[in-house]
């Protein structure tokens, strides 16, 4: 996002739905960028991301030094793809509060000192709080990078390869297609509402039912039209998907190589080893 867009985005003029649309379109644009990571098979990226998340989360709550090394993979990807880190960190606003709320209690219940930073004792609770938050951030970065480098149809092709049922994948594709349409309609309706109710912050109780209800009824008609247009083009009950391009050697190397690295970091205290060599 350039500075002008950022100013507009942050201004109160945009309602919540317009911001959501903006975010959706942004992820779309990022996925259309060009980098070696973008050209990798979506299956490779999906599998590596899942492995990264599982391994990151499996670190012991006191193993801060081991966990820290895991940040290197997302950072490497950010630099290889040119994707702005700012966009990723904006998304932290949703997940971090709950993680912090849970982690914040740890220093109160777990007070035994674990290590000394100079003269200051650091309790186990503080360490576990920090590892929890870091895990939250690292996992978010991994998911973000997956979607920022893989378009929805490529992702769905990968899901089909993993034998996720066709019904679910079709539903995901179709829903994604119409999320933008619905959000836009609601954004317009919300603006129209506020233009006639300038003092109100949200929808007044007298309109609770009809505001969404009207759009819901219109959407049912739209769904019928959509179904008709599918029927008219020969649809029975089978969706033909774009097939995923074949899994190549470099995709396999990428996946297996990184999983090996993650496992190494998990089970060998690399930081300790490095630190002990430095301190000799």
């Amino acid at each position, binding site marked *: 996002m350039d500075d002008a867009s950022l100013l507009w985005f942050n201004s109160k003029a945009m309602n919540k739905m317009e911001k959501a649309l903006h975010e959706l*379109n942004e992820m*779309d644009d990022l996925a259309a960028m060009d980098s070696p990571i973008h050209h990798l098979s979506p299956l490779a990226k999906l599998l590596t991301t899942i492995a990264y998340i599982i391994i990151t989360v499996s670190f012991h709550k006191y193993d801060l030094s081991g966990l820290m090394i895991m940040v290197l993979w997302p950072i490497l990807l950010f630099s290889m793809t040119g994707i702005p880190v700012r966009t990723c960190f904006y998304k932290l606003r949703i997940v971090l509060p709950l993680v912090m709320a849970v982690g914040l209690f740890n220093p109160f219940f777990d007070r035994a000192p674990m290590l000394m930073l100079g003269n200051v004792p650091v309790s186990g609770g503080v360490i576990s709080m920090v590892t929890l938050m870091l895990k939250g951030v690292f996992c978010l970065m991994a998911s973000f990078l997956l979607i920022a480098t893989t*378009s*929805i*149809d490529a992702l769905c092709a990968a899901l089909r390869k993993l034998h996720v049922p066709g019904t679910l994948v079709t539903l995901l*594709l*179709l829903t*994604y*297609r*119409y999320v*933008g*349409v619905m959000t836009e309609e609601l954004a317009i309706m919300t603006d129209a509402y506020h233009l006639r109710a300038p003092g109100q912050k949200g929808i007044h109780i007298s309109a609770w039912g009809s505001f969404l209800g009207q759009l819901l009824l219109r959407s049912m008609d*739209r769904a019928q*039209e*959509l179904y*008709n*247009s*599918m*029927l*008219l*083009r*020969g*649809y*029975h009950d*089978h969706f*033909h998907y*774009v*097939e995923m391009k074949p899994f190549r050697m470099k995709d396999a190397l990428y996946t297996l190589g990184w999983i090996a690295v993650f496992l190494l970091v998990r089970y060998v205290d690399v930081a300790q080893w490095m630190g002990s060599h430095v301190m000799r």
Partner: protein
Amino acid sequence: MMIEKKMIQLDKVSFSYEPGRPILQDLSLHIHKGESVGLIGANGAGKSTILKLMLGLLTAQSGTVRVDGLDMNKENIATIRRKLGFVLQNSDNQLFMPTVEEDMMFAPLNYGMDREEAEKKVDRVLEQLNLTDLKYRHNHRISGGEKRMAAIATILMMEPEAILMDEPSAALDPCNRRIVIDTIRGMDQTRLITSHDLDMILETCERVILLDKGQIVADGRTEEILKDRELLEAHRMELPFCFAGPRYR
């Protein structure tokens, strides 16, 4: 004398959505092969209902619907729908795949075409319509005009014998509207177009059917009907802009 083959036939068709409020009553009309016909009339006159009856999306309560000699019934409906292409008024309801290319391949793949062959056909049709840039674009990101053209492209992939269009120039800027008009003029399939844009009808259709309250009140050459001020104004219409000019200046 050459007997023109009837492409679409409605014979004494009646239809109502609710009992006691008929939309169409004993309506008969024929569209011949190769004709380009404009279907005009006020809102609620029954234009969309006629299109839906032709496509088998609605079932007439009485009368017969025939497409290319085939009666509209359960056995023939799939064959009939293969012969007819329908461009919806709201392109968002027509373009439901993620990308333009996938949407264009939807119909051919459903009808059993090989994927490689379908991909080649996509390139041919896009080139024919001058839309090669749209191929990999996402349907939810393209503009209204681009959506309309993409929708037309998806229909042409079916190689239909007749194309039905519901308000094809609605909500388009003058430039996009001109592209749609030129595209329609370049088609050689049978065409049936409903529209309020009488100037477009004038440029694209040789025959016009004027509908009012479910009855056909005029059916003839476009030039004759669209120059008849009294006839048009009697049925909630006006002369096309290019004949009448602006009322207020």
